[in-house]
């Protein structure tokens, strides 16, 4: 029955191939969906689920509940679907107890995802704050895979302290491949020789023509807001400032109303928005 009927709330099973503690309360999961699972749309070849960077799944464990979690893998690069989940509350605590070969339940992918075309032929500036690196990792790898179609790639990544910097392996690999990376922490320790302070303070290190570049931002609300304003003041057009928003959501498909902001259902119309769209929908207020 699983996944074979028309119930859009019906999750499907996946097996955990790898579960790694990344430190600072974040756990990394590699999972493989067990067929049959919907939807295998046009691109879903070979029994794999089709998704794009910026989309998310409702990840669940029976008895605990569901939580929206972004994909951090990139289809075409990784065979598995990968998640990085931070322990913050009821559901995520239970998810953290899962180990290799356990079953995990998924529903999705949902959301619009990042429009990678917006950055074509342009320099790309990724700006991540904390756990915000998770959805961006998927897109960074995607753009890296198709780098001929893009200009220079920059990553500006800020974390609370050095131990909270995630995906250190990936950072090394990206660096080798020519991505210009700037790391910064709020609070340094003895080991840290690098930058400190908020990400917006380090935009000068990004040597690009902001008017023509395209930027993808993900992080806490305040960081997103500040960064968008900063980029605007450097001349980046609203259409080229792209971010992904967070909201409470229970269904992921525009029915439960919890993520409703203005006329937008963040789960289906979003979670990815350009600054232009964000300004437009704020016309209505709450």
């Amino acid at each position, binding site marked *: 029955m699983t996944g074979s009927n028309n119930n859009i709330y*019906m999750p499907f099973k996946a097996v955990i191939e790898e579960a790694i503690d990344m430190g600072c309360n974040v756990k990394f999961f590699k999972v493989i969906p067990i067929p049959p699972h919907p939807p295998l749309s046009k691109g879903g070849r070979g029994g794999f689920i089709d998704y794009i960077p910026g989309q998310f799944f409702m990840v669940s464990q029976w*008895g605990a*509940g569901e939580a929206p979690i972004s994909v951090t893998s990139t289809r075409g690069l990784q065979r598995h679907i990968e998640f990085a989940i931070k322990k913050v509350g009821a559901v995520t605590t239970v998810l953290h107890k899962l180990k290799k070969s356990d079953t995990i339940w998924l529903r999705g992918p949902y959301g619009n995802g990042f429009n990678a075309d917006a950055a074509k032929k342009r320099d790309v500036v990724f700006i991540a704050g904390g756990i915000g690196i998770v959805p961006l990792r998927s897109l960074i790898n995607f753009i890296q895979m198709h780098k001929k179609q893009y200009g220079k790639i920059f990553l500006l990544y800020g974390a609370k302290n050095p131990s909270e910097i995630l995906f250190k392996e990936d950072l090394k690999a990206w660096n080798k491949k020519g991505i210009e990376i700037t790391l910064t922490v709020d609070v340094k320790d003895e080991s840290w020789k690098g930058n400190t302070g908020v990400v917006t303070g380090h935009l000068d290190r990004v040597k690009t023509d902001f008017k023509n570049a395209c930027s993808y931002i993900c992080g806490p609300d305040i960081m997103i807001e500040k960064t968008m304003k900063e980029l605007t003041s450097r001349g980046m057009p609203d259409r080229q400032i792209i971010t992904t928003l967070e909201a409470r959501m229970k269904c992921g498909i525009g029915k439960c109303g919890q993520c409703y902001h203005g006329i937008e259902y963040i789960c289906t119309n979003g979670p990815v928005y350009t600054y232009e769209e964000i300004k437009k929908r704020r016309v209505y207020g709450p």
Partner: protein
Amino acid sequence: MKKDLILNKNYLSYWLRQLRKEMQLIGPMRGFKGDFVFKSIGQIHEISLDCPASAPLPKEFVFPHVEEMFEKVFSEQEIKDLQNNDKRIIFGIRPCDMSAINLIDRFYSSKFESSYDLAHPNRKSEDSYYMARRRNTVFISIGCNNPDPTCFCNSVGTGPFLESGFDVQLTDLGDRYFVQTGSKAGKTITNSYRYLFEEAQRQDYDDQYEIMLSALTKFEKRINLEETRQKILAGKVRDSFWEWVSTRCFECGGCVYECPVCTCFNIVERTETDKSPRPPLRAMAFTKGGQGGIKGKRIRIWDTCFFKGFTRMAGGNIPAEKKVMRTKRWWFHKLLYYPEQFKRFGCVGCGRCTITCPGRIDIATISQKIKVEIK
């Protein structure tokens, strides 16, 4: 014109009794304490035809307060879908509530309104639980000859009689009902008992028209939601006004729970153990194999945008923290966003929030205030 029917009042209970053999019959009846409720009817005579228009809320049968979604025995691999496919007939629903259900149909059956879901441009997103119930429900609605003092459906075009969007609509002509069928399901339940009905004659049409006109004169409220909407859009209704409205709100959620249009819900999980048949709300310490219980249910439950927890995210961040934001959300959803999405207000003028709201900041009262006080 010839297709409408007449049902002698003496035949009503026979008709309903026959229908009840085919499916569950729901209708308005008096509860223990004298209030009215929509309930499964055991004895036909229990149906209260004198029930006031806006008293009970039949939405419960297509979108229940608590809907069980899935059940899983933790030691087993598969899950059980608890989708409800019972066949039901709901008798005595009022035109405003019928209109509300038509509006919910559009919302719950709507596709992803995604600006660009690049991977799945045409994915369906019909709410399975609602649609399953909806497809199995036939409505017999009754037009309102005597609207309540709180009703204003005529101002929003959802009553007191419907022109379309019903299965069967009855109009009380005194000794007989004028019967209109508006859907295939409606035709089936009248055609199967065609011998109970007569063809409507000229006189019946005239009487029905008279009744309709007379009902229209009985409305005490004239509420112009469009005018309110225009004033909001023009920025005339200032935040200080909404502040004032919100200070009167008790955050009781009554206006949402009573509203036939509201559709928001929360999804929670319950686990059951051998010992406690009454499940505790969400087992926190549950892992694989069911340490938190032997069986779990995923249920959904009505939620209310007036509650602070409605938008609460991990880490305790609440986007709509201030009460005024939540007040505005309710108003803007009903008066701005619904019209934008569905070309209809998110209010059918049933007047229930007028009866319910302890702060007297219901849609009718505040609209009237905006009309009078804000130029």
